Structure formats: structure tokens, C-alpha cells
């Protein structure tokens, strides 16, 4: 029997990550990285330790952040692995194990940190 491909699983994670990065990525980067530091529409001190900790101690918000981090990592890993092909680096099993392995590791760390706050 032909071994089953893992492609549907990683493509789903790539697709989910790409969709999430497209829908919420630009606005998150704009708010956290540009608008708050410049004090546009927000207090420039809006992200205090107490505020952010209080928000993320809600397990739903904490998990939401972990999901964003995890899916961004899987999206990027998949795209980078397949684009390296165009630079003469084949998408070998070793490269895939490394890429998706690191994305999995980052996801586990994110979930553990978010739920341990």
C-alpha cells in the first residue's frame, strides 16, 4: 500500500496560518508596533505589564495568542520549505522535519507559556 502523504495536514496548517495572517496580521502589527508606541488612537503606555497580564490570564485570550503564534509559524515553515526549492534546495524529509519540528516546538512553548501565566 502506498504510504499516506502528510501533505493535507501541513497544507491545512499552512492555509489556516495564511488566512489568519491575512485577516488579523496587518491590524495587529499596526496596533502593537506602530499606533501604540506613537500614541496614535491609544495611550503610548497602554501595554503595561498589569494590563497585558490581566488580559492574557483569561485562558481564551491566552490560547488565542498561542494559536496566532503557532499558525504563523506553520504557515511560514511551509512557505519557506517550498520556496527553497526555487533556490535549488529540495524539500527533503530532513528539511521538512526541521521546519515543521521547529514550528511544533514553538507552538508547544507558546501554549505552555500562555496557560501558565
Amino acid at each position: 500500500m502506498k504510504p499516506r502523504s502528510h501533505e493535507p495536514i501541513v497544507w491545512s496548517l499552512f492555509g489556516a496560518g495564511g488566512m489568519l495572517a491575512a485577516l488579523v496580521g496587518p491590524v495587529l502589527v499596526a496596533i502593537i508596533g506602530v499606533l501604540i508606541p506613537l500614541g496614535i488612537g491609544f495611550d503610548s503606555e497602554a501595554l503595561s505589564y498589569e494590563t497585558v497580564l490581566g488580559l492574557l490570564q483569561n485562558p481564551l485570550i491566552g490560547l488565542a495568542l498561542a494559536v496566532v503564534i503557532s499558525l504563523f509559524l506553520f504557515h511560514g515553515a511551509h512557505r519557506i520549505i517550498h520556496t527553497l526549492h526555487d533556490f535549488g534546495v529540495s524539500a527533503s524529509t530532513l528539511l521538512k522535519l526541521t521546519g515543521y519540528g521547529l514550528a511544533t516546538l514553538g507552538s508547544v512553548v507558546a501554549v505552555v507559556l500562555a496557560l501558565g501565566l
Partner: protein
Amino acid sequence: MNQPKTYTRSMSRWWLRRPNYKWYLIREGTSVLVVAYALFLLLGLSRLADSPEAFATWLAVLQSPVSIALHLLVFIAFAYHAWTWFGLLPQTMPLLRFRGEFIQNRTVVTAAIVVWIAVSVGILILMMRVLS
């Protein structure tokens, strides 16, 4: 052994050969910044879990002019990713039907971009309320 000398076209700097190759590479390149941003958020989360002082250091980085400039670049990358992602939806999604008629590609893309803008404005308003 006599190897036949077949002509093999060089692949060096292939991305400069056609404008579309360059745009393809820029689109794929956004994923490097998506990963970088995920790691930056993960770093902030770990600093938050560590101590108030550690998180203050991460916040101080966010306030620096270099960080703001880099975040503007990352914002452009995310926005370009989003624009191309929604533009490709007709190719990546199953065909949709409405009352027996296939929905036009243009309609799918326009609807996705409208949803994108609505979600972005919604998150912006929500964050302004929560963080005020």
C-alpha cells in the same frame, strides 16, 4: 563514457527575468517576516511570564524608533501577504455556487477583502476600548 552535451539553461538570478517572478518571490518572502513576527510575539509572551522587569525591557524595544520603522516594514509585508492571499482565493478554494450559478472569481475576492477590512476595523475598535 561519452556524455551527450545537452544545453542546460542557467538558473542564476532567475527572479530578475520576469516581473512576475520577482512579485512571486516577494509574496513568498513575506512568510519570513510572518515567522519573525511570531517569534517576536513569543519572546514578548516569555518576557511577560518571566517578570515585570523583563516585560518592561520588551516594551522599551517596542517604543524605539528602529522598532517602529521595522514594524512599518512588517506591516507592509503582512498587508501584501493579505492582498495576494485574498487575490488567490478563487484558485485555492473549492468553487462556490449560489442558486445553481457559480460565484464569479471577482465576487469572491471582493467579499474576502470586505471581510478583511471589517475584521481589521473591528479589532481596532475592540483594542481601543479594552486598552483605554
